[in-house]
């Protein structure tokens, strides 16, 4: 019981820490990896709480697949949260004035 409680408390603390890191991190790739770690911890917690099926699902879908589709998205969009838009010639004409003023 003591071991169970300690491990759950430690995992819960790490869970919150990782989630905060994922939200605060400006580099999205690191943020996504943090969410992957969050899923990993979640999966362990599910296992500890006698839910092996859910743990397996979270492991296969949450850790592997969700992370990878996030990574693919970041590869196809921008990596920094505070990115500066890259403008192509063709798009420049379609910008509104506010956006033009920013650059």
């Amino acid at each position: 019981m003591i071991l169970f409680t300690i491990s759950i408390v430690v995992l819960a603390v790490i869970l919150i820490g990782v989630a905060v890191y994922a939200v605060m991190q400006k580099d999205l790739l690191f943020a996504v990896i943090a969410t992957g770690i969050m899923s990993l911890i979640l999966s362990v917690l599910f296992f500890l709480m006698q839910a092996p099926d859910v743990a397996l699902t979270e492991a296969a879908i949450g850790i592997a697949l969700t992370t990878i589709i996030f990574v693919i998205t970041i590869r196809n969009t921008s990596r920094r949260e505070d990115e500066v838009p890259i403008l192509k010639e063709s798009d420049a004409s379609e910008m509104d004035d506010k956006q033009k003023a920013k650059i």
Partner: protein
Amino acid sequence: MENIDFNQILSIAIYGSAVGLILIGLYAVLMKKHLTKIIIGLSIIDAGIHLLFIAIGYISNGTSPIFSEKGISLVSEGTKMVDPVPQALVLTAIVIGFGVTAVALSLVIRLYRHHQTARIDQIKTLKW
């Protein structure tokens, strides 16, 4: 050591982290400007709710709801199994959440194609 209420500690840790995840995710959804970050926030909220649901189904010293070779007799001997319903529902919810995340991310890619940016404050061309 005897008078430590383990259940109290556990409930604070589990419920606290579940609610914490929900709040952190909400913060990201409401405050962050980058589309990918907002989707990350949504999946953090989802994670919190899944954790909460599993915790609600958990029974102290319970076993997982799978009958082993001599499993059937375990029931009558008084060993408890945890509630299987939340687990089945969370399994469904995780898969559905993946579907929603995939569609959301594909829309992010689409928006990036059109605007060359994924920041919400720079692509609001539609009126509210």
